[in-house]
């Protein structure tokens, strides 16, 4: 009855994704450090950080939701990962399509927000406000980019999108989808919480925003969640625009390429304020998105 092969695949991919996600975080820090002409931390540093946070001997809480938030966020990230076709491992991806995955990738945000809000700290609340407004702002261009993609390939299923790309060439080779890719890439900065859209954490303004109250194991959970999310999002990008991958190595190369673009953009731009970000998202990315969408109707 139980499909043991699938179970093994799920466990394997989860471990791989978590590990690689941490490595991606390490790459991010290392690459930033190199751009800043520093040596930078070892590439496995995020793993150490997470272990240390988990190894804190005390822990504080503001009630059930505060504990539930990070757990929920990480759970949703794992769930989202299971529905993305990771290279030749399809996992559950035939059971849910792009819209479901896009939604599942947004839930962790809600989890973090829930927990952050329940602490009652004004800095967290400001972070929540900014996080949600960033989401509101980016959702329109994000949606348009996805719509353009779906319209072009005529299917919602990620596995089919990958298959079509492997026969007909990558999405970015299609002019309209290239435009969509640019839009998606701008939105991607916001999804990863990097400059110029790291408005949510903004250390100099609101001291990490939603993360400010988290410590110890809660923060460890959120770091793990971030790692999985990072892996899932880069994989999502690769699947949507870079033709997916036939094996993990190919996927890894594509993911790292995506990551590097994000890092390069992040290291040369300062941060927007939240209203500027909203106005920005509703201007150029939206116009580009509409162009992409109209080109693919």
């Amino acid at each position, binding site marked *: 009855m139980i499909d043991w092969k699938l179970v093994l695949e799920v466990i394997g991919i989860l471990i791989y994704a978590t590990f690689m996600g941490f490595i991606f975080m390490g790459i991010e820090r290392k690459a*930033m450090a190199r*751009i*800043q*002409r*520093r040596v930078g931390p070892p590439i496995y540093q995020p793993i150490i950080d997470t272990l240390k946070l988990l190894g804190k001997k005390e822990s504080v809480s503001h009630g059930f939701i505060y504990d539930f938030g990070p757990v929920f966020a990480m759970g949703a990230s794992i769930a989202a990962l299971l529905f993305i076709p990771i290279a030749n491992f399809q996992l559950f991806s035939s059971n849910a399509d792009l819209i479901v995955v896009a939604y599942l990738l947004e839930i962790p945000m809600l989890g973090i927000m829930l927990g952050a809000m329940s602490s009652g700290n*004004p*800095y967290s609340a*400001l972070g929540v*406000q900014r996080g949600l407004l960033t989401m509101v702002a980016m959702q329109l261009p994000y949606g348009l980019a996805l719509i353009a993609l779906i319209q072009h390939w005529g299917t919602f299923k990620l596995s089919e999108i990958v298959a079509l790309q492997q026969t007909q060439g990558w999405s970015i080779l299609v002019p309209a989808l290239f435009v969509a890719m640019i839009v998606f890439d701008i939105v991607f900065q916001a999804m990863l919480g990097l*400059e*110029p859209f*790291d*408005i949510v954490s*903004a*250390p*100099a*303004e*609101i*001291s990490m925003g939603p993360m400010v109250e988290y410590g110890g194991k809660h923060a460890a959970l959120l770091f793990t969640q971030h790692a999985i999310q990072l892996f899932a999002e880069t994989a999502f990008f690769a699947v949507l625009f870079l033709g997916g991958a036939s094996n993990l190595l190919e996927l890894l190369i594509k993911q790292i390429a995506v990551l590097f673009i994000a890092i390069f953009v992040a*290291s*040369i*731009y*300062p*941060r*927007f*304020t*939240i*209203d*500027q970000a909203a106005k920005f998202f509703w201007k150029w990315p939206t116009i580009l998105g509409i162009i992409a969408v109209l080109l693919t109707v």
Partner: protein
Amino acid sequence: MTNIEVPKELREEAKQHDMYLHPIDKDTYELFFGPQHMATENFSIILKMDGNRIERAIVNPGFLHRGFEKLAEQRPYFTNIALILRICVPESDVPENIYSMAVDEIVGWEVPERAQWIRTVVLEMARMSAWMFWIMGFGNEIGLYTAGQWAAAYRERFMRLFEELTGGRVYHIYTVPGGVRRDIPGDKWLRQLRDTVEYLKGKMKDFDEILFDNYIMFERTEGVGVMDRKFALKHAVTGPNLRATGVPYDVRKDDPYLYYPELEFEVPVLKEGDSLARVLVRRYEMEQDLYILEQLLDMGPPSGPYMVKDARLKALPRFKPPKGDAYAHVESTKGDFGVYVVSDGTHKPYRAHFRGPSQSHGVTVLEELLKGARLADVPVILKTLDNCPPDIDR
């Protein structure tokens, strides 16, 4: 004008500390901004917020108060140098210099040419390293860490030069009344300084590309924290902040000291008065400072002693200047930095009163500019005013 009228009874009660005041005004909330915060140094602002807009800001300084002025009254004149330079950490040469200049004036010393030249070089180097520090602070606060990291690394070049010249990285204890403590290490040092200046000149282009021409930097600063000329004068705004409102006031030009009368340089002035203007004025000043350093190096150090010849300098702890008082000020990167020294003829100053530029920038001006600003503007305003909390606290 900040007009925070709190009913007297309420203040009395607050002083008694045993009242129960429930937040009556639920429209706003309180945000404690600093001191344990990345944007402020050890400095606190209490913000009364409405959404993301600031309705009222109350500055709470004093975290760095060490009673310098009291301590200076308890120490001999020359020992004080080692103390008062700690007022302004990023530019520790400025307090040394003004204090020495004031004492020079009280005693009536004519500082030797060479010492003046060295003092000018040191001040300009301090300015340049403070600019690098400012770029770092500003970059970090608007989220552009790369520029900040680069700038902090370039600052290290000056730190190394300072170390060679004075023996200290941050606190130099170098300029003393009557001259400087040591001579220049040698021509090699001058060559290194010239190399550094050349190097930084090339690097200014990098900063232009990444920071000063950055579209988002413009977005963040344009129209934020605007003050006009009249406001600036009434609030004793000095330095680049004043020049950004259209007043070409620079102590180096208007009240020249040391070697500055012999130097050619421009005073950049913009008239918008917003954060962007303040940023750009600073940008132009960096160029001017490099140019000044270049000129100084071209002139070369004048020959002669680096310290006045005076019998009183034999026994420094018992050094007694005549009765009198003097006010000396220099142009620091943050503005007009002054000191008022009163001597009653004993070996300790009777009073040394420092005037840091942030005393005006960091309290009334900040409170005014923050009214109606967004929370995200707070670090921008703080950093474009170049607020330095120890100036206020001392």
